[in-house]
């Protein structure tokens, strides 16, 4: 797949403050590209520069062969944008809103079809303020689709939504992705990035600290799974260290925390130990490594600190 977006040494400074510090990456046609990071990492600023909303301090962004800074309006004509917490004119119904936005692109659309795509056709005559949070986000995706864009930019599409609405939106995004649209989204939910994205750039303090597929990232960070359990009595010292796959065993007050690169081998062996060493396991939990752990490992901080 050819690249549709090329970002080179992109920098944004506000006075002394550097919001985005010389980042470079490419996005392939049809790919879902995630920018992941904590609040204030520079995700939104990066996205808004890519959308032509904010001037660039230095560096270049090329979209589909067009320099975003020079051909801003041509780029805007070809992309669909959902802003973080953007709202719409209060006085208009959803259908009128979709029509209004289509006219801004010099287009006519079948507003009802578009609303049906985001499951809002029944609300076509409602006003924006009558919508729930999830419905508002779906509306803003519908509005971002009015110009049948080549690429869609979604800025934290699921922030502030309840889990069900979030899953609902993931389905919608997956659906749009299946139609071959390139999607660039920012999020601070690791799970969201893992579910939706083909490739992820993790940003922290204005820089991209790592970029790759979710699998690559998990491997790159070299974090395995964690097995946690309680025991009725502790077996002799050192026993747990010899379990297959275990990289580190931490003894806790009433149990253990085992870090393993291969939980499929570790667990059967653990149950055998239970019999041979005569102790009893309860409250067993297995944690798969997530991007959360990757972030923690790379930055030494948790994502939502």
């Amino acid at each position, binding site marked *: 797949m050819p690249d549709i977006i090329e970002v080179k040494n992109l920098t944004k400074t*506000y006075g002394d403050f550097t919001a985005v510090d010389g980042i470079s990456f490419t996005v392939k046609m049809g790919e879902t590209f995630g920018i992941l990071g904590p609040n204030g990492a520079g995700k939104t600023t990066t996205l808004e520069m890519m*959308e032509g909303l904010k001037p660039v301090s230095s560096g270049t962004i090329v979209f589909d062969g067009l320099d975003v800074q020079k051909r801003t309006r041509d780029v805007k004509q070809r992309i669909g*944008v959902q802003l973080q917490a*953007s709202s*719409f004119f209060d*006085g208009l119904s959803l259908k009128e809103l979709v029509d209004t936005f289509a006219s*801004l*692109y010099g287009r006519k659309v079948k507003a009802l079809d578009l609303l049906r795509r985001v499951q809002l056709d029944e609300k076509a005559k409602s006003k924006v303020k009558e919508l729930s949070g999830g419905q508002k986000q779906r509306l803003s995706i519908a509005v971002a689709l009015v110009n049948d864009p080549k690429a869609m930019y979604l800025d934290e599409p699921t922030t502030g939504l309840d889990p069900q609405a979030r899953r609902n939106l993931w389905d919608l995004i997956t659906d749009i992705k299946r139609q071959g649209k390139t999607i660039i989204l920012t999020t601070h939910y690791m799970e969201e990035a893992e579910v939706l994205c083909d490739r992820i750039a993790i940003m922290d303090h204005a820089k991209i600290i790592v970029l790759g597929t979710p699998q690559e990232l998990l491997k790159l960070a070299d974090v395995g799974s964690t097995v946690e359990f309680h025991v009725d009595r502790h077996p002799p010292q050192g026993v747990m260290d010899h379990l297959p796959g275990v990289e580190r065993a931490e003894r806790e007050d009433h149990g253990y925390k085992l870090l393993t690169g291969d939980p499929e081998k570790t667990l059967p062996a653990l149950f055998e130990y239970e019999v041979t060493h005569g102790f009893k396991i309860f409250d067993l939990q297995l944690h798969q490594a997530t991007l959360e752990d990757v972030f923690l490992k790379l930055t030494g901080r948790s994502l939502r600190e």
Partner: protein
Amino acid sequence: MFVRNRQSLFFTLFMPLMIMVIFGFVGLDKTPKISLGIVVDQPTAATQQFINDLKKFEAFDVTQGSENAERVALKKGERVAVIIMPSDFFPNPADLVISPPPAGGKNTAPLQPSYSKLKPKTLVMLENVAQQQFAKTAESIIRQMLDKTTLGIVQAPTFFEVQAENVSVKSTKYIDFLVPGILGMALMQMAVFSVAFVFADYKEKGILKRLLATPMKPQQFVTAQVITRLIVALAQSAILLAVGVWLLHTHVYGSLWLVALIAIVGSVMFLGLGFTISGLANTVDSVPAIANLIVFPMLFLGGTFFPISGMPQIMQSIVTYLPLQYLTHSLREVMANGAGLNAIAHDIYWMLGWAVIMVTLAMFTFRFEERRV
């Protein structure tokens, strides 16, 4: 979208209409009637005739009652003056003919009443000191009426005559002053608040930013918004004028086209102010604070409700330069005095000058995006 916003409709139409109707009906131009009490027992026909004449006077509100009751009313301040008349204050005409002329005299001579036999009659007027001016007015009117009657009785020739001529002048009722003022106020409110609130709201909610993400040009959007509001300004002027003319009987002597021109120039000036305010306000909440700080003093100093000529000289020389003053003044000149374009050119120039200042300020302060520090 403008019409669907109930708040802006309120400020654009209903508030000015309400003020206009309330002030119009309260009728600040009506002088209160002079309340007269009359005490007389069993008046003769001529005396009753005099009382009836008094009652016909528009300026008087005449009550007849017993002396006690009227004195109490006077003390309470309910009467400006109380007149106590003897019942035969005016003698019946028959009584005036004292006697036929002595026999043997000239028969051809008309009957001559003998005035010397008529004693002067006295009428007591109790006047309310607190309302001396009105009481004196009443007194002089009554004196005049009595003088006329005296002249009538003695059939003295009239040497001096005042000839009162009715000249049809343009009505200078308060309502004719008020309606142009209200119209100016309404235009200002609409232009300032509809822009300041709406754009601060669009900005705060990120609607402007969302629009920027489309290929639309910002100046197109602003132009469309300005044109919408100019149309609203014309519609608003038409409605207010219609209500003023039909309901409150105000007059428009000058050209309606000129009124429309003034409305547009004035609106542009205040739209500039509206954009400036929405540029200065960081949030929607700070809009009313900033807007009212500018709009309210102007409302009362800009010749909306009362003429600025009533203010101290120093103040006058300052408030003359207020943008609203030029708007209300030119509207008033055209509507109440039938002024032409030349007569209001001065106001128009000043408004255009203010418009340039406001729009320039707006361009410096108003941004589509929220400023980031």
